[in-house]
């Protein structure tokens, strides 16, 4: 069993990779059990910001000594993180949540769909799917990576190593004009399984698209969290069936999710 822990990690590197988007590698033992789609909660040092910030795992290094997080500065807490330098300590709770079920993509054509700050978890996911392909003696042509940006791109070069990348930008400056859905249409993409993370309107569109095209979609949801471990019931999402914890229709995003089968959630 994986034990959740609060640990002190050390910042290994940090750089700004787009407007308001930061890329940080941290050295931590938590990397040993990190799976794509899981997250960590990062605590600001400033005591006026008491709650940890849930941030998805972007990448794990080969030796499993470091975790990469790519996050957007959204307020006081993430602004503090953006100022950390190599060698600074950083307080982290993890590993949290359930990741994407990689086995669902076995032998299938899979769409990895990321929108904005939902793109980072797609990297480790693509990497692990590529490893599975290599083991099975396949190429990566079954991995279609579909990314939606406002305008400025990030992580697309990293992702190109593991599959075919299709891009949509809101202003049309790169790739399709519009959203990830436009990128699918413009490129005539067909597949079996979708792994996705991004803003709610994008996830709703994916759920609808998957149902219409008989694809199996997994959505990684985001919700305001407090404890991150399933105790406070702050971050819930509406579910089709009664949830196993409270026996209502409100599953906990932090512990039952954040990744759900699209038809299980009412979004």
């Amino acid at each position, binding site marked *: 069993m994986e034990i959740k822990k609060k640990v002190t990690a050390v910042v290994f590197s940090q750089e700004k990779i787009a407007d308001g988007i930061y890329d940080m590698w941290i050295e931590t033992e938590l990397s040993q059990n990190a799976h794509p789609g899981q997250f960590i909660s990062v605590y600001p040092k400033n005591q006026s910001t008491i709650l940890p910030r849930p941030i998805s795992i972007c990448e794990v290094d080969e030796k499993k000594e470091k975790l990469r997080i790519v996050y957007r500065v959204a307020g006081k807490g993430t602004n503090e993180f953006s100022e950390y330098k190599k060698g600074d300590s950083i307080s982290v709770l993890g590993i949290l949540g359930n990741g994407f079920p990689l086995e669902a993509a076995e032998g299938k054509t899979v769409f990895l769909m990321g929108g904005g700050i939902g793109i980072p978890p797609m990297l480790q996911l693509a990497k692990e799917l590529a490893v599975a392909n290599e083991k099975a003696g396949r190429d990566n042509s079954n991995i279609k990576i579909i990314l939606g940006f406002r305008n400025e791109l990030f992580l697309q070069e990293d992702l190109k190593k593991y599959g075919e990348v299709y891009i949509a930008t809101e202003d049309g400056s790169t790739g399709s004009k519009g959203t990830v859905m436009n990128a699918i249409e413009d490129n005539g993409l067909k597949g079996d399984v979708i792994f996705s993370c991004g803003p709610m309107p994008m996830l709703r569109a994916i759920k609808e698209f998957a149902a219409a095209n008989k694809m199996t979609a997994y959505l990684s949801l985001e919700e305001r969290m407090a404890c991150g471990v399933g105790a406070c019931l*702050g971050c819930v999402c509406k579910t089709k069936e009664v949830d196993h914890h*409270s026996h209502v229709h*409100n599953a906990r995003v932090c512990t039952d999710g954040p990744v759900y089968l699209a038809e299980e959630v009412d979004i």
Partner: protein
Amino acid sequence: MEQKRNTAVTIAGVTFKNPVMTASGTFGSGMEYGEFVDLNKLGAVVTKGVANVPWPGNPTPRVAETYGGMLNAIGLQNPGVDVFIKRDLEYLKQFDTKVIVNVCGKSVEDYVEVVERLGDEAVDMLEINVSCPNVKEGAIAFGQKADALFHITKEIKKKAKQPVIMKLSPNVTSIAEMAKAAEAAGADAISLINTITGMKIDIHRKQFALANRTGGLSGPAIKPVAVRMVYEASQAVNIPIIGMGGIANGEDAMEFMMAGATAVSVGAMNFVNPYATEETIQGIQDYMNQYNVNDINELIGCVK
């Protein structure tokens, strides 16, 4: 040589190995935090509020951070007393700690139903939630008027087999008056404070930060209010008080105890530090060592 110092406290005939408990709603039934702390070390686990039937709670967002604290409007999502007895109480039985069950309801009858269902279960005390600010019916409706509080306390006491703690709201004009009403109706103890009603507006979205609009403020931001209210209540009544509100460590716990609390609960700070309960217990021991206090009971209400 470390001297053996007494940290045990007794409330209504129930002895706790130390005065540190968990504030209802911040610790589930202990399962989630059992991964971080040894529940055997806690004075008591106070569970999340449980009703007669499952409650779905409020829409999201349910939580928002504020300066040095947080607002919540969970709305008492819970699986109802049947599942709670089968799953949560069963889980808690394996630990050498006291179990206090927080009870919520929409009507006096709802509360009484849960209290009766728990009568023969492995429950050491009942904490009656008449102070949750986030539900439309019940809860705080019984906790803001002295006569309503007196009435529900009296009705629950008629049926309860375990000692009854009334959990009081800070959203009142006089906490002393409320404490007296609970005592007069036969409450065995009181606990305070529940959260303080607050509001946050997201100026970027021009919306309330919480779907429920208002929520309960907790965390270090409310600690001075809580200490003051524990003090005022302790001056007004003779029944024991369980104090809570932003407790993060042993020093905070000592403040509440010196103000008159017999025991304390760690609440929102569990979210900030999942080890906060154990560290608070250690902090109390460290304080006793530093000042050579042989018995924690000597310090209860020592500041007058």
